[in-house]
């Protein structure tokens, strides 16, 4: 083989490689651009990879797993799916993204609010939350402000609920509005607010995640809300009934002008569980629920312990009592509540306690005696029958 031949073949091979590489790159780039045409900032170039993430040291010294993967298909269908990444993550402007702060939900978006023509913002709702008992300004113990729920503690940027019912209107919209995706989004936006978004069971779990945390509640001088699952409301919710009151129906009834963001302390005259408003709350005043339309004042005021009735027997209480010494005496002593020192209240608790105790003793003695009597009786009868040759008994 001649030298020239080898050289030629090498050159050809090189050319072939270059062509293949160019074509491959061209197709990849074209497809990538086509696929992510909506992602104008090109964040998904990296964030589309599901392995993206790292371990960080958390505030309590434990490792924390952070996932930076964004599933575009899911994100596009969430309530924030039409926003650009940088509309919220405003301070991400270099690679690697250093010094990034958490997203502030109160900042202005680049979306125009059609009602005012100005840039849209969640600021009003954030202000309401801050003034409520769950907010930095409204809380009675600002020294523990890290315990307070943030926007994202409850709201997880959920996927819009798609409903065939709601999408029926789509062809009506389509008569004028030509972009179907836009119309679809608009309907979902409206419809989402008309239906119940969270099942009651989820609401109870969400509220309980803090209000059953005994150490957290002790810091804020509150009773732990553990008895709710033993009440009729709690049981019905447990069995999937959506027609009974969950936490929010009593603590933030819309009928008397409260929203989940504006919950106030029960001592506040605006509170729905304040003695002055209790009756209206049970009656579902101004609402469509019609819960207890016949509720008398007596009935409404009596429900001091809607969370705590029977709580002393629950597993959660026992757990709390084991781990938290301050709870061992009745679950109420930990709070600085004046109710505990009320002689009337303690008399009432004692009466119920003694009825229960007497019944427990009676059950143990009577049923225990009966079991022993029956056992002896059965043994005796069996003996008699054995002794009786023809077994005629």
């Amino acid at each position, binding site marked *: 083989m001649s030298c020239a031949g080898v050289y030629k073949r090498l050159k050809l091979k090189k050319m072939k490689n270059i062509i293949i590489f160019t074509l491959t790159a061209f197709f990849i780039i074209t497809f990538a651009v086509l696929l992510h045409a909506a992602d104008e900032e090109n964040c998904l170039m990296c964030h589309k990879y599901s392995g993206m993430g790292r371990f960080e040291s958390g505030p309590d010294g434990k490792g924390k797993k952070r996932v930076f993967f964004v599933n575009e298909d899911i994100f596009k269908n969430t309530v924030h799916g039409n926003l650009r990444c940088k509309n919220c993550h405003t301070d991400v402007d270099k690679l690697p993204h250093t010094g990034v702060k958490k997203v502030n939900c109160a900042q202005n978006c680049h979306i125009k609010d059609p009602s005012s023509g100005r840039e849209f913002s969640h600021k009003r709702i954030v202000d309401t939350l801050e003034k409520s008992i769950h907010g930095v300004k409204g809380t009675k113990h600002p020294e523990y402000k890290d315990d307070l729920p943030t926007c994202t503690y409850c709201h997880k940027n959920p996927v819009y609920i798609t409903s065939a019912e709601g999408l029926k209107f789509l062809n009506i919209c389509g008569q004028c509005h030509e972009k179907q995706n836009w119309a679809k989004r608009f309907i979902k936006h409206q419809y989402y607010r008309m239906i119940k978004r969270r099942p009651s069971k989820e609401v109870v779990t969400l509220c309980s995640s803090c209000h059953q945390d005994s150490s957290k509640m002790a810091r804020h001088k509150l009773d732990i809300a553990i008895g709710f699952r033993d009440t009729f409301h709690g*049981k019905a919710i447990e069995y*999937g009934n959506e027609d009974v009151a969950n936490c929010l129906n009593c603590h933030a009834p819309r009928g008397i002008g409260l929203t989940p963001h504006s919950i106030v302390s029960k001592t506040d005259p605006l509170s729905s569980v304040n003695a002055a408003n209790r009756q209206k709350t049970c009656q579902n005043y101004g609402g469509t629920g019609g819960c207890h339309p016949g509720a*008398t004042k007596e009935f409404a005021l*009596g429900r001091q312990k809607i969370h705590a009735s029977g709580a002393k027997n629950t597993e959660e209480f026992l757990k709390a009592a084991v781990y938290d010494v301050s709870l061992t005496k009745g679950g109420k002593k930990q709070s600085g509540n004046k109710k505990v020192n009320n002689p009337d209240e303690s008399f009432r608790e004692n009466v119920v306690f003694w009825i229960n105790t007497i019944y427990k003793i009676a059950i143990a003695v009577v049923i225990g005696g009966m079991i022993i009597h*029956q056992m002896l009786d*059965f043994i*005796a*009868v069996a003996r008699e029958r054995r002794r009786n040759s023809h077994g005629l008994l």
Partner: protein
Amino acid sequence: MDCYDKRNIAMRYYVRMNRSERIQHLMLILSITTLVLTGFMLEGETWVINSFGSASKLIFFWRGILHRIAGVGFILIGVYHLYYVSFTKDGNSWIRDMLPKLKDFKDAMQNVAYLVGLSKERPKFDRFNYQDKLEYFSIYFGLPIVAISGVMLWSEYNWNQFYLDVAMAFHRGEATLAALAILVWHLLTVFFKPGNYPLNTTFIHGMMSEDDLKHHHPLWYERIKDNGEEKESKS
């Protein structure tokens, strides 16, 4: 009338429960079973009902309604039985034999002594022994308690929470006591007592064989075998 038992021995049968008593007893079985099942659903673990899947919501809804229907039935049976023992001939003789006497106390002492081996023989029982009487009067003791507290809980709008708490404590305590007592004292006897297994069928046909009668209720047997209280058996 003579008939034959399963060992092919001619056997005379006596009426232990008449038709009215059998029907009352049947209604009592129905109402108490419903009350116990639907009542303790509230106390039980939620996964039991949740294991019925999407039907659990419906079950929990009907639970309350069934409990109230059965409760009303239970009260009505109690009231009817008061009428029965006061104004009918059979009822009069029933309550006369049922009322506790000093002999029952002595019987109980002797029977327990016999069971633990301190006495050589069992006492001779009349129509109802002390176990039957205990069962009967514990129901009559429990019925007003559960009925009054149940009606209070039903009409909860009219009561202060304190009274409701007390009513709840009584209702729960008495129901647990009564349910366990019936289970241990009555059901265990009629199902599993040697000689009764698999089931003492007296509550269905109302009859008791002469042998059983002689053995379990000798004094009553002596009383009714001659004086004409005996009734013809069917079967």
